[in-house]
C-alpha cells in the first residue's frame, strides 16, 4: 500500500512539472504583453505614450520593466495586423465550411463501405495528414504557379490558393472526426427509422444529421482553428496576401514588440473560449446520447497537429 502511495506521489510530481513546462512560456508571454520598455529606453523618450517608442529602441523586453496596457491599443491599431487577422478569419471560415462538407460526405460513405474500397481511400486520407507540410507547401506552390498557364481563370497566388491548399488537410481532419462519431453511434436508430417507414433521405435529415451535429460543429471549429493558425502552407502559396500567422512570424523573427504579445494573448483567449464552447457542446451531446458514448471522438478530435 505504501509503495502505491509513493508511486502515485512521484507521478503527480512529474505531472506538475510537465504542466509547468507546458504553461509557463504561455503565461510569461501573456504577462509580458503588459511589459514596459526598459528604463534606459524610457529615459531617452519624451513622448506621452511609451508604446510609441520605435521597436529597435525598446531595450531588453525579456525581463520585467513595469506595467502598462498600452500595447493592446498599439497592437490593435497596427496597420498590418488587423487586416491580416481579417484575411485569416475569412480564409478559415471558407476552409471550415468546405472541409466539413467534403468530410461529411466521405465519412458517411466510408464508415460502412466495403473494405477493399475503404482501405485505399483511407490510406490517401492519412497520407494527406502525414506528408510533411513543407513538402505539400512547395508542391502546391509549383502547382499553383503552373496551373494558370493551362487552366484559364485559375486564380493567381493569393487567398484562393491558400484556401485550396488548406482544404486538403481540413477535409481529412473533418472526415476523421465525423466518422468517429458516426461509427460510435451505431445504426439502431436508423434501422428503427427505416422500419417505421421513413425513407432514406428523411431518415438522414431527421435521425442521422441531428445526431452527427456535435461532431460536425467540432469538425468545423477545428478546421477553422487549424486554417487560422497555419503558417507553412500560406507562407509559400500566399503571393502578396498577408495572413495573421505570416505577419506574426515576421514579427517574431525580426523585431518583437509587446504589441505582438498583446495580440497573441487576445488570440489565445479566443481559442480557449472556442475550445471551451466545443467541449461543452460535445459533452452535452454525449450525456444526451446516453449509453452510446462516442469513445473514438475525443481521440479523433485530438489527433492532428
Amino acid at each position, binding site marked *: 500500500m505504501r*509503495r502505491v502511495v509513493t508511486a502515485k506521489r512521484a*507521478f*503527480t510530481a512529474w*505531472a506538475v512539472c*510537465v504542466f509547468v*513546462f*507546458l*504553461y509557463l*512560456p*504561455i503565461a*510569461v*508571454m501573456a504577462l*509580458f504583453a503588459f511589459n514596459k520598455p526598459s528604463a534606459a529606453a524610457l529615459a531617452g523618450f519624451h513622448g506621452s505614450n511609451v508604446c510609441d517608442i520605435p521597436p529597435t529602441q525598446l531595450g531588453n523586453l*525579456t*525581463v520585467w520593466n513595469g506595467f502598462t496596457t498600452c500595447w493592446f491599443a498599439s497592437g490593435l491599431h497596427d496597420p498590418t495586423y488587423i487586416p491580416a487577422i481579417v484575411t485569416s478569419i475569412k480564409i478559415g471560415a471558407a476552409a471550415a465550411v468546405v472541409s466539413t*462538407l*467534403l468530410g461529411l*460526405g*466521405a465519412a*458517411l*460513405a466510408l464508415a*460502412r*463501405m466495403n473494405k477493399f474500397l475503404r482501405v485505399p481511400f483511407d*490510406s490517401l486520407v*492519412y*497520407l494527406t495528414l*502525414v*506528408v510533411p507540410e513543407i*513538402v*505539400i507547401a*512547395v*508542391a*502546391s506552390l*509549383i*502547382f499553383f504557379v503552373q496551373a494558370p498557364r493551362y487552366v484559364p481563370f485559375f486564380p493567381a497566388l493569393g487567398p484562393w490558393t491558400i484556401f485550396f491548399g488548406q482544404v*486538403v488537410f481540413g477535409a481529412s481532419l473533418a472526415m*476523421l472526426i465525423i466518422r*468517429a462519431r458516426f*461509427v460510435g453511434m*451505431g*445504426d*439502431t436508430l436508423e*434501422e428503427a427509422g427505416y422500419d417505421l417507414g421513413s425513407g432514406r433521405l428523411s431518415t438522414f435529415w431527421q435521425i442521422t444529421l441531428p445526431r452527427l451535429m456535435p461532431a460536425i460543429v467540432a469538425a468545423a471549429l477545428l478546421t477553422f482553428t487549424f486554417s487560422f*493558425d497555419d503558417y507553412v502552407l500560406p507562407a*509559400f502559396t500566399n503571393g502578396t496576401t498577408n495572413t495573421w500567422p505570416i505577419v506574426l512570424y515576421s514579427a*517574431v*523573427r525580426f523585431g518583437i514588440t509587446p504589441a*505582438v504579445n498583446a495580440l*497573441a494573448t487576445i*488570440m*489565445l483567449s479566443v*481559442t*480557449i473560449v472556442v475550445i471551451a464552447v466545443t*467541449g461543452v457542446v460535445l459533452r452535452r451531446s454525449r450525456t444526451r446520447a446516453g449509453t452510446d458514448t462516442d*469513445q*473514438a471522438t475525443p*481521440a479523433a478530435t*485530438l*489527433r492532428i*497537429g
Partner: protein
Amino acid sequence: MAAAEDVTGSDVGRTRRSFSPRYPAWLTSPSFVYYAIFFLGPLAILVAFSLATQTGFNAITYGFDTSQFHLVTGSLYVKIFARTLVMAGVGSLLTMIVGYPIAYWMARYLTTYKMLALLLVLVPFWTSFLIRTYALKIILDSHGYLAKYLGINIMYTKYAVAVGLVYNYLPLFIIPVFASLERMDWSLVEAATDLGAKPFNAFREITLRLTLPGVVTGALLVFIPMSGEYIIPNILSGGNYEFVGNVIGDQFVSAQNQPFGSALSISLMIALSGFVAIYILFATKEERFGA
C-alpha cells in the same frame, strides 16, 4: 456486410443483424476529386520538377534528369538529412520519456480530474503553434531570466530546437498513449502482482505490452512531423541548425532552384516512407489508434 457490422460498436454482443444502412459510395467522390486535383496533382508536378533541368532563372525544361538527386547525395545534404532524422529521433524519444508517465498518471490515478487533466494537455495543442514557439523564445532568450539566474543560455542552439520539439509535440504523443491506457484492463496488472510479480515487472510485461500500439502510433505521430519541421529550427536556432525542411524552403524562397528543392522534398518523403507506411498500417487497421 461483415465489415459493416464489426464497425458498429454498439452492436457488440448482440445477434448479428442483416440490416446495415449504407450511404452511396459516390459521396466520397467530391473529396476524392479534390484530393486528386489539389493533393496528388501538386505531388505529381513535384516529381516532374525534381527530374527537370534548370535552364535559367525560374525557367526549367521537363525531362528525366537525375542530376538533382545526385546533388542530394552530396556530403553536405546527407549531413543535413542525418541531422534532421537524428534530431527528430531524439525529440521523439524525449517526448516519450516525458509524456508516457503523464498519460499513465492520468489513466491510472485520476478519476474526478481526469477530463480536466486531459483538457490541460490539449489546450496548448489547440493554440497556435507559432505563438507557443514564440512564447518559448521569450523564456529561452539570452537576456531573459533563465539565462541570467540559472545560467541556462541555449537560445539559437540545437538544445533550444530539442526543447522546442518536445514542447510543441508533447500533447500529440500523450493523447494516443492515454487512449490505449484507458482501454487497458487494470485487473490484469492486479492479478500479476497478486501472483507475486514485482510492480515494475508487471508494468513491463502487461501495461507496456498492451499499450505498445498506442506508443508506436504516438511516436510516429510526432516523429514524422518533427522530421519535416520548418518553424521550430527557424525561430529557435535562428538558422544555425537547419533541418531539411528549411533547406527545401530556401530553394524556393531565396535560391530559386526549384528542381533541387523538389528533389530534396522527394528525398525527404522517401526517407520517411517507411515510417509513414507503418503509421498508415496501424491507423487504417485500428481506427481508434490512428484516430
